[in-house]
C-alpha cells in the first residue's frame, strides 16, 4: 500500500478482536493457535517448545526482526501466502489444519495442501477469515527449521522445516516443507513417505534432501539462481531432518 501497488477500497482492522484470537493452548491431542497470536508469543511459548521442540522457536528466531515479530501474526503469515514465509513451512511440516469461519459462524477445517493455492492466494473465501490453526501432537517429537538468508531479518533464500516423531527406533510420522522454492510453500511428500517406517540415518536424510531438491521448483531472482536454490533446498532439508532426529531421540 505504501508503494501504491495495492489500493484496497476498505481496510478492516482486526486488532480489536485480538483478546479472542491470541492464544496457544492444548485441547486433547491438539495444539491450537489463534490467528491473532503474534510471532513473539510463539517464539516465547513454553508449551510450543515442550510439545514441538524446537521447530517454532527456531523458525521464529530467524523470522524478520523483533519489530515485525512483535506485530506480525500467525493468521497474517498464513494468509499472506508468501512462498518464502518461514512460519508457513513450519505449519506444513507439522500438518497444521486451518480453521476458517464465515457468515453466521459457519466453520470449515482446511488442510495446508488445500489452503495455499498459489502465490499470495489462499482458500479463504471473501466472507471468511482464518481464526485458528490446529496441530496434532505426537510422542517422540523432534523438529528443526533451517534457513539461509542474505542478511539477518531478510526473507529466506531457501528454508526447510522438518518434523519427525520417532518411537522404538522407527520414524512414525514425518513432515518436510521448503520455503521460497516454489509458487507456494513446498510440501515434500515424497520425502515424508520415504522416511516413515525407517530407522533415522544420515543416508536416509540425504535421500530425503535429494528428493526435496528434485521436487521443488525455484525461480531465479535477486536472491540467487534456481540451480543454487535447488541445491540448497537439499542441503537444508538434510540438515533439518538430522537435527530433528537428534532432538526426537534426546
Amino acid at each position: 500500500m505504501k508503494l501504491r501497488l495495492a489500493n484496497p477500497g476498505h481496510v478492516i482492522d482486526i486488532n480489536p478482536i485480538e483478546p479472542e484470537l491470541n492464544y496457544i493452548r492444548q485441547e486433547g491431542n491438539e495444539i491450537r493457535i489463534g490467528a491473532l497470536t503474534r510471532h513473539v508469543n510463539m517464539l516465547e511459548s513454553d508449551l510450543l517448545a515442550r510439545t514441538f521442540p524446537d521447530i517454532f522457536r527456531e523458525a521464529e528466531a530467524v523470522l524478520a526482526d523483533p519489530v515485525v515479530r512483535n506485530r506480525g501474526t500467525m493468521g497474517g503469515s498464513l494468509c499472506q501466502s508468501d512462498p518464502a514465509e518461514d512460519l508457513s513451512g513450519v505449519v506444513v511440516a507439522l500438518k497444521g489444519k486451518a480453521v476458517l469461519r464465515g457468515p453466521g459462524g459457519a466453520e470449515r477445517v482446511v488442510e495446508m495442501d488445500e489452503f495455499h493455492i498459489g502465490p499470495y492466494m489462499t482458500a479463504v473465501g471473501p466472507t471468511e477469515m482464518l481464526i485458528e490453526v490446529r496441530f496434532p501432537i505426537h510422542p517422540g517429537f523432534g523438529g528443526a527449521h533451517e534457513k539461509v538468508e542474505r542478511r539477518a531479518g531478510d526473507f529466506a533464500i531457501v528454508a526447510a522445516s522438518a518434523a519427525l516423531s520417532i518411537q522404538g527406533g522407527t520414524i512414525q510420522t514425518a513432515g518436510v516443507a521448503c520455503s521460497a522454492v516454489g509458487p507456494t510453500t513446498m510440501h515434500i511428500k515424497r520425502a515424508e513417505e520415504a522416511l516413515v517406517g525407517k530407522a533415522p540415518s544420515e543416508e536416509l536424510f540425504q535421500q530425503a534432501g535429494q528428493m526435496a531438491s528434485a521436487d521443488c521448483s525455484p525461480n531465479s531472482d535477486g536472491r540467487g539462481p534456481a540451480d543454487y536454490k535447488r541445491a540448497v533446498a537439499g542441503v537444508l532439508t538434510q540438515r533439518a531432518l538430522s537435527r530433528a532426529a537428534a532432538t526426537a531421540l534426546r
Partner: protein
Amino acid sequence: MATVETGPGRHPEWYAHATGDKFGKIADAPIGFGHMKRKEDARFIRGLGDYMDDVRLPGMLHGAILRSPYAHARINSIDTSAALAHPKVAAVIIAKDLETLGLAWMPTISYDTQAVLAGDKVRFHLQEVAFVIATDAYAAQDALQLIDVDYDVLPAIVNCRKALDPDAPLIRDDKVGQTDNLASPLWEAGDKANCDRVFAEADVVAKRTILDPRSHPCPMETCGMVADMNPATGQLNIYNGNQAPHAHRTVYAQVAGLPEQNIRILCNDIGGGFGNKVPVYPGYVCAIAGSIVAGAPVKWIEDRSENLASTGFARDYLMYSEMCSKGGKITGLRVDTIADHGAFDSTAQATKFPAGFFHIVTGSYDLQGAHCQVKAVYTNKAPGGVAYRCSFRITEAVYLVERMVDALAMEMNVDPVELRMRSFIRSDQFPYETQTGWVYDSGDYHKAMKLAMEIADYEGLRKEQQEKLARGEMMGIGIAFFTEGVGAGPRRHMDILGLAMNDGAELRVHPSGKAVVSLSAQTQGQGHETTFAQIVAEELGISPNEIMVRHGDTDKTPYGLGTYGSRSTPVSGGAVAVVSRKVRDKARQFAALMLETRAEDLAWEKGRWYVKGDPERGSTIESIAEYAYSASNLPEGLEGGLDANAVYDPPNLTYPFGAYIAVVDVDPGTGKVHMRRFIAVDDCGVRINPMVVEGQIHGGLVEGIGQALMEIISFDEQGNCLNASFMDYLLPTALECPEHGFELGETVTPCPHHPIGAKGVGESPCVGSPPAIANAVVDAMYHAKGVKHMDMPCFPARVWAAMNGREQPPQ
C-alpha cells in the same frame, strides 16, 4: 496549562532542555585531547535532533517528482493538464518551464551537464521528468499519476563493456560534438614505458579482472530541501542537509544567476552523508525553481527508493589489473579501468583529477614501476560516482591493490602477509614519492602489520584453518593494508569548480571566557561539535563544554569546502588550531598589559600566560578575555576583543594507514559467509578524541561488511534498477558483525605537517575492510577448492557459484 511556543518543526522538549545544562554538557570533559562522550549525542539519542523534514514554514508547499519508467526513451510529449486540474496542485514544472528560467540543465561537479528535468530524452530508469507542487505531500503524489508522458523506448546500455561498441546507441546526443559514449578523455598516471620494463623483467605476474561494484552510500536521512524565496526581498533561504554548504551557495548563485549575498544555506542536523550529500541534485533545483514560481516555500524530500535509484551511487569501476614481482618482492602494477559514470558525469573529485585519487593505487608498497589509466563511459544508469566514505576513488584503488597483492601471493605461493612485509615502504623512506607522484608524509607499516598479526594470532589462525580444512570446513583469513591520502587539499593542486580546497575558521572568545568556533566544515554525524571544541580546548585551555561549535549556516560561518574525503580534521582542524593560536597570541598582548611586562617575557601553559621565571604571576584565558572586552586604556595598535579568523591551506594531504585482518567461515553447503573476527589496527596520527575515532572505525567497518557481503545496485537488461528499496538493497546489521566485537589496535605516527599532527580517519575503516573481507572469502575458497577470485558482493548464491567454479561478475 500554558502551551510551549515552539519554532518550526521543533520538539517542545527541545526548548525545555535547551535553556538548562542538560544538553551537550559532559561531566568529565578533558581540557583538550582525550576520551570524551560526544556533546551532540545528548540530543540525538533523545530523538531531539532537528532534521530537514522537521522544517515547517508558514504557507509551505510540497513537491514530488515524476520519474521515468524507462532507462532510455525519447519523450514525445508531456501532458500535465489533468495534474494541474487537481484542486490541491499549485504548479507543475517540466523541462520547458525550466528552460525559460535557464535551469533545464545544470553543471555537475565534473564539468559535465545534467538534465534537471528530462525534456528531450530520459537517460536512466527513474530519471526526473516533472515536478509537482501541491498543498500537501499526499496530493503531490496523487497528482504525479495524472501526468501523461508519451515515450518512444530506445535500447539501453547497462554494461560498461558495451558502451563503446561502435553500434552502441548514443546516450548523450544533447552534447554538441559527442559521437560516442566516452564520458571524458583517457586519463593516465605513472610512467608507462618504465612500468612495461619492470613487467618485462618480472619473475611472476598475476592478472585479474576486478569489479568494484556499484553501491550506494545510503545515509539514514535521504536527500531533500526546503527552498524559501522571499518575493519581497529576493532573499533565498535554503534548508538542505549537505556536506559543503558554502560551495553549494556559490553553485546556486552561478546556476540560477542569483546574487550570492542573497542566498543563505541552513543545514540543521544531518542524518548521514557518506558522499551522497556532496552533489547538487535535480530535486534541489526543482525546489528552488518551484519556490520562485509558486512564491511560497517548497519542501521536497525524496523517499528511500528515490534516494537509492537516482542520487549519487559509488564505485562501479571495472579494473583489468596486473601485478608482478621480482626476487620475491612486488615490483610493478598496471591497471586499465573502465569507469561507469551513468548518464551524466557527476563524479565527485578535485577538478584536476578526473579519476579522483585513484592513482594512489600503488598502495603501501615500494614499487619500481606503475601505470594506471581510466576510461570513463556513459551508460543508461543513474549518475553519481560519489566518494562513498572515501577520498575520491581511494576505496577503489585500495580494493584493487590489496586484492592484487593476494592474487600475486597465490601465484608466488607465498603467505600474503609475508609478501606485504617484504614489499612495504620502510619507515626510513618517508617522505616517500610513489611511482604515480604522491608524496606520503609518514608511516611505519611494518609495525602496524605486526601489531595486527599479534592481536589476531595470525600463526594460530593459519593452523586452525588447516585443521578445519582437514575436516571439510572452510575458513578464510583476509589481509588488507591500506594507505589513504586524505584532506584535500593544497590550493596549488586542488580545487572543485575553481574553488580552492581550503577551509576557514572563526573563533570568538566571549568576555566570560567561553567561546564560539565557527567552521566551514559540515558535520553529518562525525562528532564535530565535540572534536573541534577539543582542539580549541587543547590550544587555549578552555573546557570543551564551554566551547560552542557552529556550522551549517552560510551567513554565520566562514567560507570553505566542507566535509568529505576525510578532510575535516586535516583541513578544518588545521584552521581551528591556527585560529586558536592566533587568539592565544592576541591574548598574550593583553596578558602583558595586565601583568605589566613585555609579551616576549611571557610563557604559555594550557589556559594561561605567565611571567617566565615567575610562574606565580600569570593571567588565565578567562581573565584575559574579560580584560580584552573591558580595558579602557588600550595602547595604539591593539584592538579590543578576543577573536580571530583563519583560512587553512594544507601543505600536503595526510596519509593515514592501517592493517586489517578479517576471519570468516564459509558454509560449503550454502555459500553463507560468517564474519567471525575483524582486527583493525589504525594509524591516524594524533587522536584528538580516541572515542570518536573508535566510533568512526566501528561504523566504517560495518559499512565495509555491507559492501563486501551484500550491497549492490544492479540492473536488468532493460536498465531497470533492481535495488530501489531496502528489501533489495541490503544494509548490514549488528548481527552481521563479529559477535565478540571488533578488535581494534592503534599505532601513532603524527602527521609531520599538520598543526596538531592529526590525519583523517573517518573513511579508513570503510576503505580498508572490503578488500580484507573479500580476500578472506577468496582465501577460504582457494584453500578448499583452488578458487582464485570472486567479485563482491559475496552473498551466499554468488559464493556458492564461485566455489563451484561458475562465478559470473555481477551485472
